[in-house]
C-alpha cells in the first residue's frame, strides 16, 4: 500500500506530519520511554515487574494506527507501548510506574495494569491469556447493544497454550463476535521457546481450527503490521466475526528485569536486532528519500523531550495518602 501520502490521525499525538513519520515517531516514543523506564528501574524509582517491549514496537504501532478511537483494546502486562499509542498521556503512564496517584490507574496497578477506560483501553492483564475471555465479553456486549465496534485483544504466543485462548477463540467464532485477536509471537514465553511448549508451532493453524480467519505478518515491519491489521479489522467490521493475526517479532531485552536470559544466545538476539523495527524503517524511509537524518533526529528529540517531561511530572506528583488505602475495592455510593 502507499501509506506515504497519508497524514497522521487526529489524537495519535504530535502535529500534522506524513503518516510514515508518525509511525516512526510513535515507535521512538515507545522506545525512549521504555529505555528511560529501565534506567529508572535501576534507580529504584520504578519497582515490581517491568516488561519491556523493546524490539517489538512495530506491532503496537502498526496495529494501533489501524484501529478506530472507538474500538476496545485489551492488552497484557507488556503494554506500555499499547497504552501510549492508545492515547494515554505519557505523564500518566510514567506516574503509574512510579506508583503515584496521578497515574492512569491511580498508582494501584503499576506497569502491568495500565488502564484508561475513557480511551477504551481495558488494561494490562498479568494473567497469561486472561484478556481473551474479557475481549470476547466486550464484543458480546457491543453486539447485544447494537454498537458497531471491534475489540482488539493483544497477547503473547505463550497464551496460546492456555485454556483461555482456546475457550475464547471458540466462543468468539461460535458466536461470530467482532474480536481482533492480535498475537505478538516473540518466540519466547519467559525462557520457554515456542517449539519447546507447543506441538503445533504454526499458530495460525490453531486459530484456523476454530474456523477463525488468520493472517501471519512480519512484526518487525511497521507498514506490514499496519496493513495486515487494517485488512483484518476491515474484515471483522464487515463480517462481524473474529480474526486472528500473528505478528512475528522478537524482544531484544530480557523478559522482565529479573531475567538473566540463560535460555537464549547473544547471537540469536543480535541477528534479530539487525531487523530492529526503528532503524530498519528509518533506513527504508531515508533510502526512499522520505526522511533525512535531521528529520530523524528531530523526531527523536521530540520523543526524548516528551519522556523528560513525563519523568518530571511523575517525580513531582504526590503520593496517595495511606488513609485512602481501602478505596476502589467496590464502587462507592453504590445502591445496596
Amino acid at each position, binding site marked *: 500500500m502507499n501509506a506515504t501520502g497519508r497524514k497522521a490521525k487526529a489524537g495519535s499525538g504530535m502535529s500534522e506530519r506524513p503518516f510514515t513519520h508518525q509511525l516512526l515517531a510513535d515507535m521512538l516514543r515507545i522506545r525512549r520511554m521504555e529505555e528511560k523506564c529501565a534506567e529508572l528501574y535501576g534507580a529504584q524509582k520504578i519497582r515490581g515487574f517491568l516488561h519491556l517491549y523493546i524490539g517489538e514496537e512495530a506491532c503496537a504501532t502498526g496495529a494501533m494506527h489501524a484501529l478506530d478511537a472507538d474500538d*476496545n483494546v485489551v492488552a497484557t502486562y507488556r503494554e506500555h507501548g499499547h497504552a501510549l499509542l492508545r492515547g494515554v498521556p505519557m505523564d500518566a503512564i510514567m506516574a503509574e510506574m512510579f506508583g503515584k496517584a496521578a*497515574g*492512569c*490507574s*491511580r*498508582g*494501584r*496497578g503499576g506497569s502491568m*495494569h495500565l*488502564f*484508561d*477506560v*475513557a480511551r477504551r483501553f*481495558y*488494561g494490562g*492483564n498479568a*494473567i497469561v491469556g*486472561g484478556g*481473551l*475471555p*474479557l*475481549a*470476547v*465479553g*466486550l*464484543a*458480546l*456486549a*457491543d453486539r*447485544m*447493544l447494537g454498537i458497531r465496534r471491534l*475489540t482488539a485483544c493483544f497477547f503473547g504466543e505463550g497464551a496460546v497454550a492456555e*485454556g*483461555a485462548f482456546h*475457550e*475464547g477463540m*471458540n*466462543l468468539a467464532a*461460535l458466536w461470530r463476535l467482532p474480536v481482533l485477536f492480535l498475537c505478538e509471537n516473540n518466540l519466547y514465553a519467559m525462557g520457554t521457546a515456542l517449539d519447546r511448549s507447543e506441538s503445533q508451532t504454526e499458530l495460525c493453524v490453531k486459530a484456523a481450527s476454530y474456523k477463525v480467519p488468520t493472517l501471519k505478518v512480519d512484526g518487525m515491519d511497521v507498514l506490514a503490521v499496519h496493513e495486515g491489521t487494517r485488512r483484518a479489522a476491515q474484515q471483522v467490521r464487515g463480517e462481524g466475526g473474529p480474526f486472528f493475526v500473528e505478528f512475528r517479532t522478537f524482544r531484544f531485552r530480557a523478559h522482565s528485569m529479573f531475567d538473566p536470559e540463560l535460555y537464549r544466545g547473544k547471537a540469536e538476539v543480535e541477528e534479530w536486532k539487525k531487523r530492529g523495527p526503528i532503524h530498519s524503517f528509518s533506513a527504508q524511509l531515508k533510502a526512499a528519500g522520505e526522511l533525512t537524518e535531521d528529520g530523524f533526529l528531530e523526531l527523536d528529540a521530540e520523543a526524548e523531550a516528551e519522556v523528560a517531561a513525563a519523568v518530571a511530572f511523575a517525580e513531582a506528583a504526590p503520593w496517595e495518602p495511606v488513609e485512602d488505602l481501602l*478505596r*476502589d*475495592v*467496590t*464502587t462507592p455510593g*453504590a*445502591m*445496596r
Partner: protein
Amino acid sequence: MRISYREAMRQALHEALANDPRVFLMGEDVGRYGGTYAVSKGFYDEFGPERIRDTPLSELGFVGAGIGAALGGMRPIVEVMTVNFSLLALDQIVNSAALLRHMSGGQVSVPLVIRMATGAGRQLAAQHSHSLENWYAHIPGIRVLAPATIADARGMLGPALADPDPVVIFEHAQLYNMEDDLRDEPNEDWACDIEHAAIRRPGSQLSLITYGGSLPKALDAAAELARDGIDVEVVDLRVLRPLDTATIAESVSRTHRAVIVDEGWRSGSLAAEVMARIVERCFYDLDAPPLRVCSEEVPIPYAKHMEDAALPQAAKIVAAVREVLNV
C-alpha cells in the same frame, strides 16, 4: 402464596429479564435444556437464544466473557452449573472480576451476577459435593450471597443486579424443592436487602449462626431444643461477604453463647471467621467458649450413611448447643 425455592428463583430471573434488556442469562444448559436445576425452564422460548445463551463447557471462557460483557454495559447473569465446576473459572472471578476496579484505580465497575448451586447431601460423591463459599467470601471486591429462604431466593437477585460490583450467589442444591409462603400482596416489591444478616428465630439462650443449606437444619435443631425448653436464636448470615458483624455481635452479646453451623470443612472455614469475630467483639460477653458444627475433614463420601455422618445434621447441632449450655 406457597412456592418452591426453585420457583422463587425462576420468578426473580424472569422479572430481571423482563424488566431490563441489558440482562441476559448465560451458562451451560440454561437454554434448551431448561437449566440444570430447571430454574430457567421455558426462558429459551420466551426470551430467545441471544438472551438465554447456552455456552460450551468453557467455565473460564464464559465467566470471563460475562465479565467483559459487564464492562461493556450489559448486566449478565452467568450460571455456573455448580460450585464444583467454578474452580475452572476461579481465575477469571478472582483475578479479573474482583480486581479490575482496584487495578484500574476505580475506573471500572463489573456489574456481573454469578449464580451457582452448592453443597452436598444427594450422594453425588466427592467431586460434586463441595461447599466452597468461603473461598469466594475471602476475596475483596466481590459480594457473596447465600439465599436460604423463599423470600431471599425471590428477592436477592434484583439488588444483586443493581449492585455495580460482582455478586456471587450460592444456591444450595438441597433448597430448590423447599416450599414456603411468600408474601403476595399486589405490586409487591420483592427486593430485599443484601447487606445484613437476619434473625430467623428469636431466642434468648444461645445464638445459632448459619447460612445456606444449613439453615433448615439449624431451625430443626432449634425447634427440637424448644420442645425441651431450650430457647435458641437462629441467625442466618445471608450475606457471606461483607459479613454483617454487627448483627452477629448484637445477638451474641444478648445470648452470651454461640454455635456456628457451616457445611464447609472446619479448617479455614467461614465458621472460623465468624467465631474469630465473635471472640474479637464479644469476648467479655461470652459465658462459654463458642463451638462449631462443620463438615468432617474428609472428601464427601458417596455412601449415604457416610455422607450423612460427614455433614452437619440437626442432631449434631443439638448436641453442640447442649454442650455449650451445659444442659
